[in-house]
């Protein structure tokens, strides 16, 4: 397993776009999360610690990380490097597992870095500008850790979903755009249409991947199984992609 991990790590860090996208991600998370803090007044702060630390769970931010996820296979198929990779790793499950582990580790690292940026930024702005009372959250609250855990899992799930789409389609652009379109346009549209058609079919929207993911991250009361629905979608598409990755010609 170690050789495959070394190979994938070297692949990830040896292209400049990895570093550019990582910097872009941190900058975007910082801007999106800290602008409300800097604009807040100390008397009536609007941004809460909860809101601040859930910023990496924003679909737009997750989309930036999904570019790295899509590149995991997208670049290899686009430039034929997959044939070199698979000639070094004839047992395809090994390299797939290595890619999944490195991607997950990367997402975890980037999310922690994003929180560090947000935390340091908020302290620079003045912690009194973040609303600690409104929701009961503080920077060290145990409730915060639940929120952060959910944001972390959402980021990993979103990226594995994007990677799986790229594996299936062998198309980098589709791997980035399809999850984004689903999350921001298609699923809200489907949800709206279902609501218009009939109240009896409206609950179907609760089984859509990104609608359930967002409900899970914000702990929606009427949607207790939201996390499981999202996980089922991610696992399902990942196993489908794995099956075809092993069966298809390189």
């Amino acid at each position: 397993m170690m050789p495959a991990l070394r190979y994938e790590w070297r692949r990830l860090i040896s292209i400049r776009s990895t570093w550019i996208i990582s910097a872009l991600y941190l900058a975007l998370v910082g801007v999106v999360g800290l602008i409300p803090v800097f604009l807040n007044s100390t008397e009536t702060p609007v941004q809460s610690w909860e809101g601040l630390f859930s910023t990496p769970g924003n679909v737009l931010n997750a989309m930036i990380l999904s570019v790295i996820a899509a590149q995991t296979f997208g670049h290899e198929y686009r430039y034929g490097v997959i044939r070199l990779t698979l000639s070094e790793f004839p047992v395809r499950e090994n390299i797939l597992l290595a890619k999944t582990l490195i991607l997950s580790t990367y997402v975890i690292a980037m999310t922690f870095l994003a929180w560090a940026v947000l935390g340091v930024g908020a302290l620079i702005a003045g912690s009194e500008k973040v609303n600690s009372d409104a929701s009961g959250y503080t920077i060290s609250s145990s409730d915060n850790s639940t929120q952060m855990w959910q944001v972390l899992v959402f980021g990993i799930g979103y990226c594995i979903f994007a990677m799986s789409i790229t594996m299936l389609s062998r198309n980098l652009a589709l791997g980035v755009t399809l999850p984004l379109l689903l999350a921001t346009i298609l699923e809200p549209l489907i949800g709206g249409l279902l609501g218009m058609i009939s109240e009896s079919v409206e609950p179907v929207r609760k089984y859509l991947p990104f609608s359930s993911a967002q409900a899970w991250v914000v702990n929606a009361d009427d949607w207790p199984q939201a996390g499981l629905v999202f996980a089922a979608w991610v696992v399902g598409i990942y196993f489908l992609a794995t099956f075809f990755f092993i069966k298809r010609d390189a």
Partner: protein
Amino acid sequence: MRVEVNNVDKHFRKLHAVNDLSFTVEPGRVTGFLGPNGSGKSTTMRLMLGLDNGTGETLFDGLPLAKYKSVTGVVGAHLDAKFFHPKRSARGHLRMLGAEANISKARIDEVIQLVGLSDVARKRPGGFSLGMGQRLGLAGAILAQPKVLMLDEPANGLDPQSIHWLRDFLKHYASLGNTVLVSSHLLGEMQLLADDVVVIARGTLVAAESMQAFLSRANSKSVFVRSNDVVRLASVLSMNGFRVEIEGENAIKVIDATPERVGEIAFQSGVQLSELFAEAANLETVFMDLTASGMDYEIGTPIAGHDSAVIRSGESL
């Protein structure tokens, strides 16, 4: 390391790309892998490496590749001159390929120098010429000094000096006891390089033997003759049932003849000869003869007096 290809077979929908192919590639020798365009050479190589799914098996010293703990020391493959990320530096590309076997930076620099890419090692290969891409591909294949080297058309795009270098390198690599399998369209080059040949057409095995045995299959043996009285000699030879072709000023080629017989006829006719030798069997001629019926693509060419004509390899105009 001996490579055994056993009953390898591959279909692409209705196309039977590789048809129950079996052959052996021996260590210490360079084996040329020949066949017309679309004959299935690249597909066979991909099947051997497990990149394509098909039936049959390829054994490396009796074991399939998947059974080896580390594959890079077993087989190094160069399948295409453009298999690299255009924005990852040449050195970065090789470091990635070498990560599996923990190849040292010193070895990477050594290989870069060996293939002549030192000046561009830190440059992005997106702007590389075909020849430079071939060098980078070869560097990746030899990085871990594998016991088996598989190269698909490695001489495409190389200049004559580089082809000469490649030939010497591969011969040397095989002389160390390694196994080298090279596919190429450059038949003249293959005749100089390969010890053995594997020839396929339409995915079917045509020949798998030593180069010498393959060349001895030549159907027609010709004799080159030069004389100041070449017109009379040609006439006498024709009367003796030989087919004669003009080969420039004062020279003819006598088809299906031996130097002894041509010399005898010339002596009996009183024609003085200034040059007489048997033309060596040519890989291209034998290849064309054997694969003529296995061509996937016919070639159209304009001929004087006709709008166009279709020729098949091995046929004369």
